[in-house]
Every structure is written in structure tokens, then in C-alpha cells.
């Protein structure tokens, strides 16, 4: 059993910025994002592929970053919660979570917002059942989800409006 395997050079684009780094192969993508890049908006909840607090977009697809090795993100485009706001303006999803009280402690919120982003990219007019399925991989232990559903519906409405270009 090797004590420490040789590092691997990777280049990962996170929220538009390219990061060339050397990583140990066993480093998880979430640890890479939090520790190497110091983007601590992406959270570690269960660390067992259950709770979804670590959800990020990898090449446009929501993934649990605790269940992907950083070396697998070589060449990939990652979006974390820090990539949502543009020029200091909150993304409609962020704004809706605030306006609708779609969070209490906030721990699960970054992951939920990324899952909401994936949903609304694929389906701009989701119904309640589709929202429920889309966030089935994100656990919230505070809210009971009702205000999260409302927040995602609210964000969908904003994102469909002609004034929203993104």
C-alpha cells in the first residue's frame, strides 16, 4: 500500500477561472474546492453521497463533489455557489431563497441552489412534482422543504422573464 501516491497535475476551471494545481489522487473534488481553492461555499454534510450539501455543476451536470476525485475534474468546468452572483448581483435563485425564506440554518442551501440551477436550465417551467424529484438528492433538516419549493418556483418565474439574460 503506497503511503502517498505521486501527485497528478490537473487544470480545473471553476466559476470561469482556470486553476492549474497538483493534487494527490485520493483528494476529493469537494476538498479540492474548499481547501486548495478556498471556496468554502460548497459544504460537506454527510460525506457519504447522501445529503447533497456538496453539490456542484461539473460540465453542466449536478454532481456530489464528495463522490468525485479532483483528478476526474481535470479539464472540467465547475460551477459552485460562488459562481451564481454576477458583479455583486445575486442570482435569481439566491434572491428567491432569501425572499421566500427557503433556508433556516443555511447549511444545505448552496447544494440546493445548484440543484435548482440544474433543474431550471433543463426545465424552465417545472411543476411541484418535478421540483421534488430534482431536489430529492438534497437533504434539508430545518425547513420541511415547503419554502424551498416556493423559492424555486419564484426563481423559475424570474428566470423566464425577458429581463433575465443568463
Amino acid at each position: 500500500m503506497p503511503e502517498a501516491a505521486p501527485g497528478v497535475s490537473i487544470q480545473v476551471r471553476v466559476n470561469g477561472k482556470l486553476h492549474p494545481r497538483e493534487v494527490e489522487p485520493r483528494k476529493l473534488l469537494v476538498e479540492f474546492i474548499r481547501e486548495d481553492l478556498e471556496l468554502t461555499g460548497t459544504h460537506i454534510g454527510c460525506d457519504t453521497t447522501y445529503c447533497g450539501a456538496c453539490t456542484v455543476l461539473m460540465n453542466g451536470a449536478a454532481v456530489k463533489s464528495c463522490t468525485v476525485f479532483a483528478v476526474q475534474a481535470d479539464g472540467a468546468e465547475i460551477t459552485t455557489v460562488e459562481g451564481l452572483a454576477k458583479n455583486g448581483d445575486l442570482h435569481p435563485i439566491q434572491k428567491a431563497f432569501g425572499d421566500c425564506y427557503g433556508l433556516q440554518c443555511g447549511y444545505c442551501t448552496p447544494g440546493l441552489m445548484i440543484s435548482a440551477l440544474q433543474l431550471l436550465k433543463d426545465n424552465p417551467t417545472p411543476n411541484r412534482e418535478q421540483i421534488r424529484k430534482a431536489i430529492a438528492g438534497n437533504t434539508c433538516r430545518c425547513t420541511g422543504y415547503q419554502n424551498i419549493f416556493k423559492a424555486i418556483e419564484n426563481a423559475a418565474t424570474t428566470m423566464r422573464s425577458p429581463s433575465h439574460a443568463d
Partner: protein
Amino acid sequence: MYPRAFSYHRASSLKDAATLLSQLGEGAKLLAGGQSLIPLMKLRFANPVHLVDLNFISGTSYIREQDGAFRFGPLTRHAEIEKSASVARVPILHDCAAGIADVQVRNRGTIGGSLAEADPSGDWATVLLTLSCEVRCAVQSSDRTLKLTEFLKDAFTTALAPDELVSEVIVKVPPENSGGAYIAFKRTAPVYPTASAAVQLTVEGDRCKDITIALGCVGLLPIRAREGEAALRGQQITPKLIASAADAARAAADPQSDMRGSADYKRQLVGALVKRATEAALRRARGQQVEVSHIYA
């Protein structure tokens, strides 16, 4: 949580991956979607010395329909199968793909990885057992095609040699007037089912011409409920006959008690799932659009 340290190898082709497997020996493991392997490594149940990453090989993620069969690439993600309009014509495949864990896991997890893992709680093996399914397995210089029943040996055990990998999954499109359904009972979306039932049948007039019933999570391998099938095959399907098939399925199940429920509970459950899946399969075989969803506790 960090797994034990390992050396990382990025395969450039499936052939290259098979070569790496034979060079690196039994301490090597393939990394496909990683949604089972990475958690196992983090818990240190799996401790590969070498990891061979298949994800950078192009052309391994596809769904092709030819000669009356679907051909799935080994790294075809559950999400691609879920979204495929052609696969939706075989509704049991869509039920399976759309019901695995959650969006995030379906975006990564692969059909080839799921079969090669052979987790008794996995979904694909149970569903594919109701269809005509073959698994193409490749070593460095040759390949062979196994029936799914030959491929699956035991819990977490397949016919794959240490230097062999899954290169394609081939599923025959069922004949006209067929329908199927797959229903699992789950405590929540991201977890494995407590029990599941897959039913695929063909009708001729008002009779059931052929039927296969497979039970998941209630044995070391998916179980064919052959007596349940016999209760319905050739018959005009009535609620009473469905109830007998469900009873036969309960008898065929061989569940173990665990944190998901007692053996008796799972046996009850799997009968109820067979009943619901048979009803949905029958309606689909008769051309009705039936939405099927897993049942979440």
C-alpha cells in the same frame, strides 16, 4: 473522509484499460461512475492500490438501437438513459434509470459499472433480468458475450476475470404488445431500495402470452419468481391471479433482516410490489400510458 492512497491511471481506451488491469494485477480497480466505489473506498471497505479511470475514454457513453436491440456503452450514465426518447419505448428501462438514487448520482453512475459492481441492492440487474440481456466483456485482445444470468455469479461477484471489463450492454427490444414496470420501495431517494420488483410481459388478445418477474434486494442476486410467472403465463390476467403471483413471489424471496426492515417485512413488501408492477405492466402492454414511480416511505 479520505480513501487509502492509491496510484491513479487514466485509460485512453478500453483496450488500454484492460492492458493496465493485466499489468497492475489484482490490486487494481476500474473507476466508472464511482458512485458505489468511491463511497466504499472512503469507508475503506474497498482499498485498491491502483485505480484505472475510464472516464476520459471517448465513445464509451452511447445508446444505439440496431437489429432490434439497444446497445449501451459501458459508461452510459443513468441520466442519459432516463432522458432517451428511444429507450422510453421500453418503459421498464426508463423506470429503472429514472428511479436510481437522485439527479446527482444519475449524472455520474453508469449501467456498466452498476452491473460490474453486482450489488444485491442495485437496480439494473433486477430490471435487465426480465429482458433478454447480454453483457459484452473484453480483455486486452478478445471479447466474449455472456447472458446476464451467466455474468451475475453472486453478491458483488461477476464472471469478469481480474483483467476483464464490461464493454457493452445489449438489451433486446421486447416484441409488440409488451409492457413492463419496475417499482422499488425506498426510505428516501438517495438510498438503495428496501425491496423492488420488475415485471415484463407480453399480451396476446386478452391473455398473457409471456411474463418475467424479477425481485430485487431480497436475495444475494436478483431472484426470478418463476412460480409467479407460471401462475400468469397463458392466462387471462385477473386480480385473483395477480394475487397468486404475488404470493408466489413472496415465497421465492429470500430476504435478510437489516436496518431497512425484517425479512418478513421485506417478503410482504415484495409481494405488494409485484402486484403493482404487474398491473402497470399489463396496462402498458395494452398501449396505455402509465406513469410509474417508486414508493418513498
